[in-house]
């Protein structure tokens, strides 16, 4: 029973963390894209072009390998738990 509880609550907690990190990472990327555009087009008022540039960058980010790395949020704690289980229970 304890094991089931650990898996369920662990999954819920890690999913919340996963969502937070992916939103954060995308937000940082969006800010970077906006700043890059503003630097290259100083004084430009073309909001449509700016939006298109940012959306293209976000789409490229979504298709890249980086967001998949956030999946490590599930892997690392599982590995740590397995290591602790092993080291605690061997003598």
């Amino acid at each position: 029973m304890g094991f089931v509880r650990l898996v369920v609550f662990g999954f819920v907690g890690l999913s919340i963390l996963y969502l937070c990190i992916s939103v954060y990472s995308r937000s940082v990327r969006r800010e970077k894209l906006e700043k890059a555009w503003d630097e290259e087009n100083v004084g430009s008022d073309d909001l449509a072009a700016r939006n298109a540039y940012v959306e293209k960058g976000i789409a490229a980010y979504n298709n890249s390998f980086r967001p998949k790395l956030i999946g490590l949020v599930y892997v690392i704690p599982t590995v740590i738990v397995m290591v602790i289980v092993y080291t605690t229970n061997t003598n």
Partner: protein
Amino acid sequence: MHRLKITFRVIAFTVFGLFLHYVLPQHDVVKITSTEIIRTDFSGFNRIFYAQADSGAVEQPTRDLRLINTDKKKTFLLGFMPRDKTEVMVYRNEDTGWIWPPYFKFDSSDLQAESASVARGDSWAVITHYGWRVRWASIYPNAIAVKLVDSPDVRVIPWFNIFFFGFLIVGIAFLRAMWMQFRERSIDPLIDSAEDRFDEASADIAEQKGRVTRWLGTWKKKS
């Protein structure tokens, strides 16, 4: 207000520190003198300082508790400064199971056997444990592992705690960065637009007022 804030912070920090001191592993240099089992009837107060029944067994209001009796080397500063004196220390030996605290210990019986075997000799051992010994409430620290050592002057490096605190600092910095980003990108624009709207609204009101006063002014005597 300022003083209240400081008091609140000090209390929060102390509680968090005590919590970590209870839960994180510590190492004691001991001579195991004997092992025993006593029956325990928990009270409502000291129940939270014990784990549950052995994993795989059923929980009952009363159960047997494995204890490890030792002579422990005294220390200063949470074990960082060893002393020559020894004191008596008793550890409980319970499964922590799958949940809390996350030591995932299922081998209490094996640990008891190990301790019994160490108790037969006269050698020093390092006991890894968490928890406190509180005599007036019959609370014992929980032993996690026993390791034989050659002499009582061993230097144990707390690797787990080093990594734990490193990770804690990184985690807090990361959460802070996440929160700042969220505030900068999501909350501040909302507040800004709300302020803009408020400004526009009050400008409107001012203008209307102006119109009314101007209209009223036309009724005034012109001199």
